[in-house]
């Protein structure tokens, strides 16, 4: 038998000291009772937040100009979703981790065409509107270049867009069916029909809110409310929740990186933060095998506080 040197950060000596009575079941029951009582106490005293979900109906009635501008950005391809890239479309390469274009490699697996999904298909669900039906037919029959000319003309005219008595008013231009389509989309939104149309495109039953959430996120209405609730990225973002509640405090390190350079200014900030957190998480999991990191407990001697009775007895 050969003796190998003792590695203090890897090996542990066999315990040759004494033992004391230990009732593991009693300990578990007491812990459960104490935690249950503490939970009830905190729930009674503090409750929990429940800010109602936003609706497109509420958005288009509260801020019809923002809704109309967002709808136009979906039509002319300048919205966040239209220019997003994977997984929604191929409009952009997406973020890069060094040479790795991870999102692009995976591809547009949740395909979204902002014109079709946010404008045309919802309008098609409107019935008993012969003029709208006719205009949608004109849109469908038009060539791609004609549609582009209409949208460009409308976009230019929309610089002077106003809302009068709840109606969208845009100066006359050579923009074909677009003015009526956009006006009807606003009316549809204000009545609440667009909320439904965006979630029922795949059938009656649905649990997928990708389309309305992306539409909402493309406007400024939701982010303005979030700003007031101190929820934006530069306000430690999504680790918070509405009201004065602790939120996901355990995400502090993830959120921290978004507050500092280069992550808060890089166009690849998200993937850089994720890459770093993956690395740090792996480092935490593999701490027992990482020289230096595994030595910190022994070198800092914090363990003497934990086992102070043991060391006192040893003396």
């Amino acid at each position, binding site marked *: *038998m050969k003796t190998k040197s*003792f590695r*203090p*950060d*890897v*090996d*542990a*000596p066999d*315990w040759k*000291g004494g*033992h*004391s009575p230990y*009732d593991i*079941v009693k300990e578990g029951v007491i*812990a*459960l009772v*104490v935690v*249950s009582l*503490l*939970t*009830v106490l905190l*729930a009674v005293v*503090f*409750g*929990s937040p*429940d800010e*109602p*979900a*936003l609706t497109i109906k509420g958005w288009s009635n509260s801020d019809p100009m923002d809704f109309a501008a967002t709808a136009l950005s979906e039509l002319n391809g300048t919205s966040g979703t239209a220019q997003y890239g994977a*997984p929604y479309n191929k409009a952009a390469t*997406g973020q890069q981790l060094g040479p790795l274009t991870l*999102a692009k490699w995976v591809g547009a*697996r*949740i395909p979204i065409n902002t014109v079709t999904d946010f404008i045309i298909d919802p309008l098609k669900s409107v019935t008993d509107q012969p003029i709208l039906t006719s205009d949608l037919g004109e849109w469908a029959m038009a060539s791609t270049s004609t549609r582009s000319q209409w949208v460009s003309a409308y976009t230019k005219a929309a610089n002077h867009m106003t809302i009068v008595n709840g109606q969208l008013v845009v100066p006359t231009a050579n923009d074909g069916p677009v003015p009526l389509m956009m006006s009807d989309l606003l009316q549809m939104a204000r009545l609440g029909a667009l909320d439904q149309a965006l979630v029922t495109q795949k059938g009656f039953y649905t*649990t*997928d809110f990708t389309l309305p*959430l*992306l539409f*909402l*996120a493309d406007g400024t209405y*939701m982010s303005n409310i979030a700003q007031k609730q101190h929820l934006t990225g530069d306000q430690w973002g*999504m680790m918070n929740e*509405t009201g004065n509640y602790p939120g*996901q*405090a*355990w995400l502090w390190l993830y959120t921290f990186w978004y507050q500092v350079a280069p992550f808060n200014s890089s166009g690849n900030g*998200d*993937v850089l*933060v*994720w890459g770093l957190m993956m690395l740090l*998480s792996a480092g935490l999991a593999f*701490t*027992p095998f990482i020289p230096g990191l*595994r030595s910190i*407990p*022994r070198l800092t001697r914090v*363990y003497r506080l*934990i*086992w102070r009775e*043991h060391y006192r007895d040893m003396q």
Partner: protein
Amino acid sequence: MSTTEIDRQWTTRLRRRVAGKLPPDKLLPDTQPTYVSSWIYVFGVTTMAALTVVIATGCLLALRGPQWWHGSSVGHFVNSLHLWSVEIFFFAMVIHLWGKYFMAAWRGGRALTWMTGVVTFLTSIAAAFTGYLCQTNFDSQWISTQAKDGINATGAGAFWNVLNMGQMLMWHIVLLPIAAVALTVLHVLLVRVKGVVPPFEERPKVSS
């Protein structure tokens, strides 16, 4: 049936292996080493107790569906119980984790115990995160639309769509809780097999 045939059975082999690794007095001990004497040890069992309350309150919420708590004072109170038990769970778990770090609790062949603990922690973060995504209120809307960019940037968003409430709800109430509980059970069994890590000593020797 011969004795040899019985000895070769998978069932017999498994029973013997389990009994050898984890006899009843190790699984449910009635004594512990005298060095296990610090408040820091409380946070492991506190974490498990909080996990029990989290699951119990989550089951209560599940009885009436994901939107019950918006229109019912009882439902809202159950949601508050669920929220605060989660906060206690993470508070206790983080202290437990740091306590074990400063004990260098991976020593003596306990690396797998440490690693299962870390993976449980990460799995629990994902479980809590999906809970925020399926609250069906403004928090869900905001958190999901913010989180999508980070997850999409990794490519994972194509398969794990945080804007799909149905998908996130199923992960929150089925897949991630099963993973978290399974990992917790494995973690605790490893603790019972290996025992609680002893204190650092000066210049001891081990033989192999």
